[in-house]
């Protein structure tokens, strides 16, 4: 999976460079997030602006990241959801679970 990672203002930003977040690459994303958390990066932001399609496995991988970050008293924010991706969160009520920001710019500093 093509992910670019960057540390900025006290947060670790993961930008997904894939059009689809589905059962083909969600396992890899989940493992990648777990590894970051284990390495002590506990303030994560997932930039979904490049993702135009998400399936139930993609939502599952993000939920896994959210739960594991919470266990470590970290934070797990989402940014840049395209409208149809956003509507998948609403349908599953996950928009009430995640902190969702319109874009990376809106994400507050993590320090």
């Amino acid at each position, binding site marked *: 999976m093509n992910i670019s990672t960057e540390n900025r203002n006290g947060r670790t930003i993961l930008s997904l460079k894939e059009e*689809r977040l589905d059962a083909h690459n969600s396992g890899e994303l989940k493992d990648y997030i777990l590894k970051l958390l284990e390495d002590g990066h506990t303030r994560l932001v997932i930039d979904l602006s490049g993702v135009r*399609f998400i399936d139930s496995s993609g939502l599952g991988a993000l939920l896994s990241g959210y739960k594991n970050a919470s266990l470590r008293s970290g934070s797990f924010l989402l940014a840049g959801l395209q409208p149809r991706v956003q509507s998948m969160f609403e*349908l599953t009520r996950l928009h009430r679970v995640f902190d969702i920001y319109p874009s990376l710019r809106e994400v507050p500093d993590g320090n």
Partner: protein
Amino acid sequence: MGGETDIINVEIVVPNQTRYLSLIGNIAEQVAKALDVYTGDRDALAYHLNLVLTEAMVNAIQHASPSDANKTVRVCMQICDKDLRIFVYDHGQGFDLNAVPPPNLDALNERGRGIFFMRTFMDWVSYRKADNGNVLEMYKKLA
């Protein structure tokens, strides 16, 4: 046009590997975008067909893989006038679709939303024995 019936039939066989999900999903989007009979939002339809096919194919791969090598998954899309039918075949042990409850959306489970999506975006979903295996059928009226 006129009294004619528009028939589109697409049948796809691919190795049962998740790397072919995007091919199946993208073909479903192309079909949705070609559906002149559909008066609704064709881009939304494209996403929804992409999604339900992706979910059904993932289930065929993850829950119903036979043990022999060179395994494939077969899916069909049929449009006859305003009736859209999608078939996803598997060769697993099968399961009782009607026994699958709606997911508890407050439980934060990582799994269990696939059939929920199918039921949400299609008019009905069924699962039964067919062709030496099983078939998941999804129907939608293109009103």
